[in-house]
């Protein structure tokens, strides 16, 4: 506890840095996954390929991806952009499947009714299917946000600052409170973001009991 209090400014900085890596990745994963899932559902033969293919991205060990990605891209390793891309890829691995399932789960009766009322396909997607898939999408997004927050720390091995730096530094110098604080704060961040998402679901989707599952 004393160690934490003594290092509070650094921990605060690391927390902010952590969020700056995680949040864009979560957002990007979501924004990419929805159209990919849409396409997967539209073109059925593509679905299995897209959904399983992106799902397997999760099998890529996180550490090598963080290192290999910039080599493949030819950008600087320490560029936070690489980390965000890597995290986005892991986010996609989870999000594409849940987004595809979410969009697929929209009641066919409602879909039929909205077509019959004269919704154009695009309008139907944005004003009917997307909001109705909302609760299931939110459930997927919550998993992505939790796992991303926890994955960010691996990038500390490359020297990208995040709460993970508390692990690498604590590991080298044998400071248990540093590692413990890192674990605890990561969990707290994940929990807070999750609560935020639940609250957002309640506000944005008042029709769904509990806003999400």
């Amino acid at each position, binding site marked *: 506890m004393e*160690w934490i209090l*003594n*290092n509070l400014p*650094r921990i605060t900085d690391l927390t902010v840095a952590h969020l700056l890596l995680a949040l864009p990745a979560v957002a990007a994963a979501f924004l*990419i996954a929805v159209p990919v899932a849409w396409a997967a559902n539209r073109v059925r033969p593509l679905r*299995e*390929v*897209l959904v*399983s*293919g*992106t*799902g*397997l*991205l999760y099998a*890529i060990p996180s550490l090598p991806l963080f290192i290999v*990605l910039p080599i*493949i*891209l030819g*950008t*600087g*390793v*320490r*560029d*936070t*952009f690489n980390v965000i*891309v890597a995290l*986005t*890829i892991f986010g*996609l691995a989870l999000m594409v499947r849940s987004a595809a399932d979410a969009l697929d789960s929209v009641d066919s009766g409602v879909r039929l009714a909205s077509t019959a009322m004269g919704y154009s396909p695009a309008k139907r997607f944005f004003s009917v299917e997307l909001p109705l898939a909302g609760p299931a999408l939110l459930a997927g997004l919550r998993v992505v946000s939790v796992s991303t927050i926890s994955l960010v720390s691996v990038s500390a*091995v*490359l*020297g*990208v*600052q995040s709460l993970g*730096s508390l692990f*690498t*530094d604590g*590991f*080298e*110098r*044998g*400071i248990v*409170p*540093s590692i413990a604080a890192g674990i605890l704060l990561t969990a707290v961040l994940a929990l807070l973001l999750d609560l935020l998402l639940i609250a957002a679901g309640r506000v944005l989707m008042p029709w769904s009991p509990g806003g999400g599952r």
Partner: protein
Amino acid sequence: MRMYPAACAGIALLTLSACGGGDPLETDDDAATDDGDSAELVIGSQQYYSNTIIAEIYAQVLENEGHEVQREFEIGQREVYIPELESGAIDVFPEYTGNLAAYLDPDIDSGDPDSVHADLQEVLPEGLETLDYADATDQDSYVVTAEFAEENDLTTVADLAEVDEDLSIAANSEFETRPYGIGGLSETYGVELTLVPVEDSGGPLTLGALLDGDVEVANIYSADPAIEDNDLVILEDTESLVLPQNVVPVVSENVDDEARAALNEVQNVLDQQALLDINAHSQSTQDSPADVAQWWLEDQGMLD
């Protein structure tokens, strides 16, 4: 069969999503750090607490001399920061003579500190220079417990060859292929060791493995206070298998003579005991690098 297209899609997606829009951020980064004309000096450090403390010492000394300093600490790999040094994005970086030389030229010969420092000058990229090297080294060393040394009458690495049991060594995984590693030991000393890789760079786990008897030998850096604290014995490297790793600042052309003089002043007092003290202080107080650096500089009377 079904999984093949899936896997291909995965890889394609990986490359696809990775390619989009990488450049804007990068140019941003360059713009932020490339302001050459200001007097501000950018100081970097490796992701290693001891290195970061030295960088912090440099920073505080330069600040004390009235320079503007920007800290870019805990950068992971040489691949990352050497190009940044070359491009002028970083101006000062605490390095170690042997490893830097070996990075720049993998075929570099081992030898005494002077010759390695001289060799280093040959391979340094244009625009980069080193200042004086310190007496302090932080180099790979073969360490055993006092009991084990006594039991087997060990003082040098070569003595390991006489030990009549299977020996293993805890070290980072690169020990497998590095010249001073498994192969080099076998070739130079006729010592056969099995590697138990522990990725904490001679940190608490490596030490623990040695003390617990999981391994007989450990690769612990010579500036690690744990060696003294645990009464460990460093086996003498009589054939200079290990490259000397004297602490040396790499500087860019942006660093003026006045600043160089200030840094050299630090280099001249940074001997082995000083580095050990610094590392020990850091581990016992668990203070931040800035606090440790300040403590040491004040102790040396180098801040006014």
